[in-house]
C-alpha cells in the first residue's frame, strides 16, 4: 500500500506550486501525521504545507490526476480518527492559512481562512461587540476549518445552533480541484450544508463566511449542585419545557468535576454528584433575571443543594474553565481517553445515563460523564491506557455498547465529533441499507474518484456487522412502522411507476405549482392526502408532520398543544416548503425527513435529536430539491414552547425555482433517479 514512487512522479509539480520545503516525505514528517487525538493510526505518503489558499485547488488537481488520495488537516484534535490517511496519500496541511480576511458587522459576517483558531476569531470579534456562536470545548486550539469539517457544536449551540447553522457561505475546492462557492441560499438543493460535517470527504473548504452575532447585553451564569445525576437531568427537562432556552445548559458528574478542578478549591458542597452550568442571555435584563429565578426554583424543586450565580467575570470564567477543561483534564487520570459522543432525545437522558453507567461498571472502567444536557448530547470520557491490551478491548466494547444504547433510545451515534473511522462500524447499526446506499451515492456524486479522505464516515466492506441492536420493546422512531395508510399508498404507487418507467410530477397543495412547467407525460402524484395529524413529542419539543399538511394547519395543531414553530408566515404544504426552499431558514428547524426515493424505497434521514453528525446532512440536501431527488413523505421539526408570536408576512423570492443545476447537482440526480422519473423538467437532460 505504501508506494513512495506515487509521489516522486508529481513532486516537481507540487514543489513548483508550494515550494520545495512544503512538500515533505521524510520519515519524521510522515510519522507526525499518522495520528490525531483519536486512536486510529495510518501513515501518509506526503505532507503538503500550504502558505496560500490559492494553492489548494491546483494541488488537488494534480493529486486527482495522479489518483492519489488526500485529506485536509488542521489542528488534528478530532476525536474519531477523521484526519487519519487510511489509504496513504497526501495530507494537506492548511494550518498556516489562518487569516481573518474580513469582519463585516453591518452584514453580520466574518470571512476567514480555514486555519483560523476558533478562539482567535472570538478574540478578534470581541472589540466590535460580536461573537461567533459555535464554541467547542477545544476552541482554544481547534480551527474553523476543522469545526466545519466536523460540524462542531459546543455549549452555545443549544440556543444558537451548530456550525452548520452559523455558516453563510463556503468557498470549496472539489475533489477534482475545481473551486466552488456554495451557500444554503443558492437555488436548488443545499450543497453547502452537505459540505459541513463531511469530514473532508466531499471537498476542502478554503474560505468561510461565518455568521457573527452581537454579544448579548446581559449574561447570567449559574451553577447548580445536585446530589444525583438523575435529579439534575429532571431539572434540565423541566427548564426546557418551561419555555426557557438557556444560552448553555451543561452537566458534569463528580469524576469530571474533580479532574477539572484538581488543584483548585472545589466550590461545591460535599455529596455533590452532578453539577449543572446554566447560562442565560438576552437584551432585556429583567427578563434574564426572571428566567434565572425560574431556573433557580426548578433546580431547588429537583433537589439542588447549592445554586450559585457567578458574581463577576472571574467566577464565570472559572465555571467555564472547569467545564471546558474536563476533557483535557482526563489526561491526569490516565494516558488515553475515549470520548463518546452519543445523542438521545432530551427526555431519554436519564435512561441513557443509567445505561451508560451500567456499561461502564460492567466493563470495570472509569469514566467522567460530561454532557451538553440541553441537547441530549452525552460525552462519557472513558480513561484507559492503550498499552494495556485487555483494557483496550473492554473500552472498545463499552464504547460500542454505549452507542447501541443511544440508538435504542431513539438517538444517534455522534452529535458533534464526527464518525471518522472509529464509529464507521456503528453506522451499520444506526442506518438501514437504503440510507447507507444513499450516503454512498452522495459521496460518489461529489467525489467520483473516491480520493477525498477515503473510507471515512461510511462503512466499508470489512465493517460488516449483521448484528443490528435488538430494538424489540425499545423506542421506535415513528418511521416505517408508523407510516399512515396514505403514506404506504403513495410509496406503493411510486414503486409501481418506477417499475413501469412512468414519469411523475410531485404535487402537493398546488400553492406554487406552475402547470406550464410540467413536462408533458409526467403523471401527477398527489400528496395532499398525506395530511394526518401532526405527532407532537411534548417533552422532546419535536413534531412530525406529513408532507401534505399545510403549514397553517400544522401551526394550528401545534398552537393547540401550546407549541410554536419559529418560521415566518408561509403558505403551502410542509413538503412543498421544504422542496421549494422559498424560506431557506426552514433548514434550521428541520431535524428529520422520511423520503421515498425514485424507486420507491423509504429512507429515514436525520431523526429527533437537535444534533446529529452521523452521515451526510441529507435532510438539508432535500431543502430546495424541487421534488427531483425524492418524494418527501414526512418531516420532523424542532418546536418552541409557548404561544406563536405575531409574524410579519414573508416576502417570497420571485425566482425561487430559477434553478440551473450544476455538475454536482446533476451527478446527485443521476445517482438518486437515473431514469429521471421525478419532476423530470428540473433536470432536462441528465
Amino acid at each position, binding site marked *: 500500500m505504501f508506494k513512495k514512487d506515487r509521489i516522486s512522479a508529481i513532486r516537481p509539480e507540487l514543489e513548483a506550486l508550494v515550494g520545495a520545503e512544503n512538500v515533505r516525505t*521524510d*520519515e*519524521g*514528517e510522515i*510519522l*507526525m*501525521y499518522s*495520528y*490525531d*487525538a*483519536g486512536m*486510529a*493510526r495510518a501513515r501518509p505518503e506526503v505532507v503538503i*504545507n500550504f502558505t496560500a489558499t490559492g494553492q489548494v485547488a491546483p494541488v488537488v488537481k494534480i493529486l486527482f490526476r495522479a489518483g492519489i488520495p488526500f485529506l485536509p488537516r488542521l*489542528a*488534528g*484534535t478530532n476525536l474519531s*480518527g477523521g484526519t*487519519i490517511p*487510511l489509504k496513504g496519500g497526501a495530507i494537506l*496541511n492548511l*494550518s*498556516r492559512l*489562518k487569516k481573518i480576511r474580513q469582519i463585516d458587522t453591518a452584514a453580520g459576517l466574518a470571512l476567514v481562512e480555514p*486555519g483560523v*483558531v476558533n478562539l482567535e476569531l472570538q478574540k478578534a470579534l470581541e472589540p466590535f461587540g460580536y461573537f461567533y456562536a459555535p464554541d467547542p470545548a*477545544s476552541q*482554544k*486550539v*481547534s480551527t474553523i476549518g476543522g469545526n466545519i469539517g466536523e460540524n462542531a457544536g459546543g455549549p452555545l449551540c443549544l440556543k444558537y445552533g451548530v456550525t452548520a447553522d452559523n455558516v453563510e457561505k463556503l468557498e470549496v475546492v472539489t475533489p477534482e480541484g475545481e473551486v466552488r462557492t456554495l451557500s444554503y441560499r443558492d437555488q436548488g438543493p443545499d450543497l453547502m450544508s452537505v459540505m459541513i460535517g463531511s469530514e473532508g470527504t466531499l471537498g476542502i473548504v478554503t474560505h468561510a463566511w461565518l455568521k457573527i452575532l452581537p454579544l448579548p447585553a446581559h449574561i447570567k451564569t449559574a451553577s447548580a449542585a445536585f446530589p444525583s445525576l438523575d435529579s439534575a437531568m429532571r431539572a434540565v427537562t423541566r427548564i426546557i419545557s418551561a419555555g426557557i432556552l438557556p444560552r448553555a445548559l451543561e452537566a458534569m458528574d463528580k469524576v469530571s468535576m474533580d479532574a477539572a478542578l*484538581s488543584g483548585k478549591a472545589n466550590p461545591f458542597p460535599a455529596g455533590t454528584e452532578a453539577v449543572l452550568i446554566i447560562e442565560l442571555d438576552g437584551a432585556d435584563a429583567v427578563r434574564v433575571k426572571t428566567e434565572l429565578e425560574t431556573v433557580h426554583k426548578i433546580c431547588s424543586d429537583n433537589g439542588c443543594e447549592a445554586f450559585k450565580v457567578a458574581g463577576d467575570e472571574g467566577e464565570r470564567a472559572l465555571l467555564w474553565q472547569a467545564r471546558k*477543561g474536563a*476533557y*483535557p*483534564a*482526563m*489526561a*491526569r487520570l490516565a*494516558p488515553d*481517553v475515549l470520548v463518546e459522543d452519543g445523542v438521545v432525545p432530551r427526555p431519554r437522558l436519564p435512561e441513557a445515563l443509567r445505561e451508560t453507567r451500567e456499561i461502564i461498571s460492567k466493563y470495570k472502567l472509569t469514566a467522567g460523564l460530561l454532557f451538553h444536557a440541553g441537547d441530549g448530547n452525552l460525552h462519557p470520557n472513558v480513561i484507559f*491506557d*492503550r*498499552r*494495556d*491490551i485487555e483494557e*483496550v478491548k473492554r473500552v*472498545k*466494547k463499552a464504547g*460500542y*455498547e454505549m452507542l447501541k444504547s443511544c440508538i435504542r433510545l431513539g438517538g444517534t451515534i455522534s452529535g458533534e465529533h464526527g464518525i471518522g*473511522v*472509529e464509529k*464507521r*462500524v456503528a453506522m451499520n447499526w444506526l442506518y438501514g441499507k437504503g440510507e447507507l446506499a444513499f450516503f454512498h451515492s452522495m459521496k460518489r456524486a461529489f467525489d467520483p474518484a473516491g480520493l477525498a479522505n477515503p473510507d471515512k464516515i461510511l462503512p466499508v466492506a*470489512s*465493517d460488516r*456487522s449483521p*448484528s443490528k*441492536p*435488538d430494538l424489540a420493546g425499545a423506542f421506535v422512531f415513528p418511521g416505517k412502522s408508523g407510516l399512515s395508510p396514505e403514506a404506504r399508498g403513495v410509496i406503493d404507487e411510486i414503486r409501481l411507476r418506477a417499475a413501469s418507467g412512468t414519469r411523475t410530477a410531485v404535487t402537493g397543495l398546488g400553492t406554487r405549482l406552475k402547470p406550464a412547467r410540467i413536462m408533458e407525460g409526467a403523471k401527477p402524484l398527489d400528496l395532499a392526502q398525506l395530511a394526518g395529524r401532526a405527532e407532537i413529542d411534548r417533552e422532546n419539543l419535536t413534531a412530525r408532520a406529513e408532507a401534505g399538511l399545510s403549514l397553517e394547519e400544522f401551526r394550528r395543531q401545534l398552537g393547540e398543544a401550546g407549541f410554536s414553530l419559529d418560521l415566518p408566515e408561509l403558505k403551502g404544504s410542509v413538503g412543498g416548503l421544504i422542496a421549494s426552499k422559498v424560506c431557506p431558514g426552514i433548514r434550521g428547524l428541520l431535524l428529520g425527513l422520511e423520503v421515498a426515493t425514485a424507486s420507491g424505497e423509504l429512507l429515514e434521514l436525520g431523526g429527533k435529536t437537535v444534533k446529529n453528525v452521523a452521515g451526510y446532512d441529507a435532510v438539508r440536501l432535500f431543502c430546495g430539491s424541487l421534488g427531483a431527488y425524492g418524494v418527501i413523505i414526512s418531516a420532523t421539526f424542532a418546536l418552541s414552547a409557548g404561544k406563536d408570536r405575531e409574524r410579519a408576512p414573508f416576502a417570497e423570492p420571485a425566482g425561487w425555482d430559477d434553478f440551473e443545476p450544476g455538475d454536482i447537482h446533476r451527478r446527485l440526480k443521476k445517482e438518486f433517479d437515473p431514469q429521471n422519473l421525478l419532476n423530470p423538467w428540473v433536470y432536462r437532460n441528465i
Partner: protein
Amino acid sequence: MSDNNQFEPGEQPKASWEPEHEGAAGGAHFRSEVNELYGHEQAGRHLTALLTDLGERNLYDAAAQCNRCGYCETSCPTYMLTGRETISARGRNQFVRMLVEGRTKSPDAAAESFSTCLLCGACSSACYAKVPTPDIVLEGRRSLTGYGDNFFARAAVNTLLNAPRLFAFWLKLAYLAKLTGLPRLAAKMGLYDFIGMPGLAEAEGAVNKVPLRFASELLRRDPELGTEGKKQLGWAYFAACGPNFLFTEVAQATVRILKKTSGPGIFVDNQCCGLMAHNYGRLDDAREFARRNILRYEELKAEHGDFPVIADCASCTAFMKGYEQLFTGDADWRPRAKAFAAAVKDILEFIPAEKAGRADPAALAAAGTVTYHDSCRACHGQGIRQEPRAVLHKLAGKNFRELPESDWCCGGAGAFAFTQPELSNKVLDRKLRNIASVQAGTVVVGATSCLAQINAGLRAAYPSARAVHYSVFIDEVAEKT
C-alpha cells in the same frame, strides 16, 4: 443485551486502534521500570526517571501520559509559526513515544523535531497533566547520534568543570579578541555557543560590551560577602554563568538589592549550575556540577544553618530546583539534591513587594513605560508570575503595562538563537511586536538569555526600548538613600 456482546476483532476497521506491534518496546512489557530508549550501559547519559506533576515516571510513561488532546499546540511557539505537527509540542512527545515503541528505526528522523524545541515549557503549562515535554525532548535529543559529543561542547564543559579558572582565562581571551577587532575569530573558536549566549556568535551586536572582570572575581573580594563571623544568613548569592561571565552588572545589582532588603548574606562562590552540560546532552557532567554545588551548599549549611540560595537567571534557578531529577537512581545523592533544590530561590520571587521600597521619580521617568516579559523558565519552569509583577506594580505604578502574550518565548532559549537562527528570529519578531504594541520603554526580564536576545532584537527594530534584568531595574529605579 446478549447480542451486543458478539464483538469480533474483525468487526472493527483494521486501521483503528491498531495494537502495538509485536516488536514495540512498550508492547511487550507494560509499565516497565527502565528508560526504554537506551541500553543500560548508557544509563549515565540519561535520566532514570522524570519527576512529573503526577509523580515519578520513566520516560515512556511520562511521554505516554500525553493523550494527544492537542490543547498545548497553540501555546507552542514553533507550531504557531510553522503550523507543522512535527515541530509542535504534541509532535515531539509523540516522537519520543514512537521511538520507544520502535515505530521508527532511526532516531535521526527526529532530529529536526527535537532540535527545534525552545524548551520553553509553555506546553507543560497548558497541559492539564503537566506532561514534562522539555525534559522528554531533552531525553530524545540525547538519543540522537553524536549528541553532546561535539568537540567544543566537550572541551568547554570539561574545562568549566575541571578548571574553571582556565575557562575564565580562555573566555577573557575570546573577549579580548572581540575587543581588539577579531570578533569572527572568537566566534570561530566556538566559545559563545556553549555559554548559551545566543546573540554573541550569531550577531556581534547582541552584546556590545563584554566584561574583563567576572562577577565572581568581584564578589569574592567584597568584604561584606565573606562568611567569617556570620551566624544566621539572610541569603547566599549564587552566580549563574550569564551574570557571572557576561552580564556582571546583573550580579552586582542582585547583590546590592539583596543587601538592602534581606540582611547579611554571602557569595556562594559556586560552580556552574550544570544546565549547559545538561542541555548539551552531557548528563554525567551536569551531575558532577550539581554534586559540587550541593557539597558547597552543605558545607555552608553546616556552618550557618538554613539559608536561601538566590540566583538571578531563571534558567539556572529552574534547573537547580529540579536537581533531584538528576539523581533519581542514586539513593545517596537524591535526598541531598532535594534539600538543596528546596533552598533555591529565584530573585524574581524572593523580594516581597513591601520591601521593594519606593521608586525615584526621575529614574522612573527615564524608564518610560515598563513592561514585564515572563522568562520561560520563570513562568513555565517555576510558576513565577505574580511575585515580580507585584514588585513592578509597586515601583512603577501607572507606568507599568502588561505585555500581551507576555509568556511567549523570546526565542533566546540558551543556544537556540545560534542553532536555529531563522526560527528564533520569527519567535523574537512576535515578542518585539508585542513590546511595540504597548509602547514600552523598558522590558524587564528574568533571565540573561532573554536579556541578550531581546536587546539584540530591540536594537535592530525598536531602539527606543531596552530590556533590563529585574535586579538591575529595581536597583536603578530605587530611591537613593
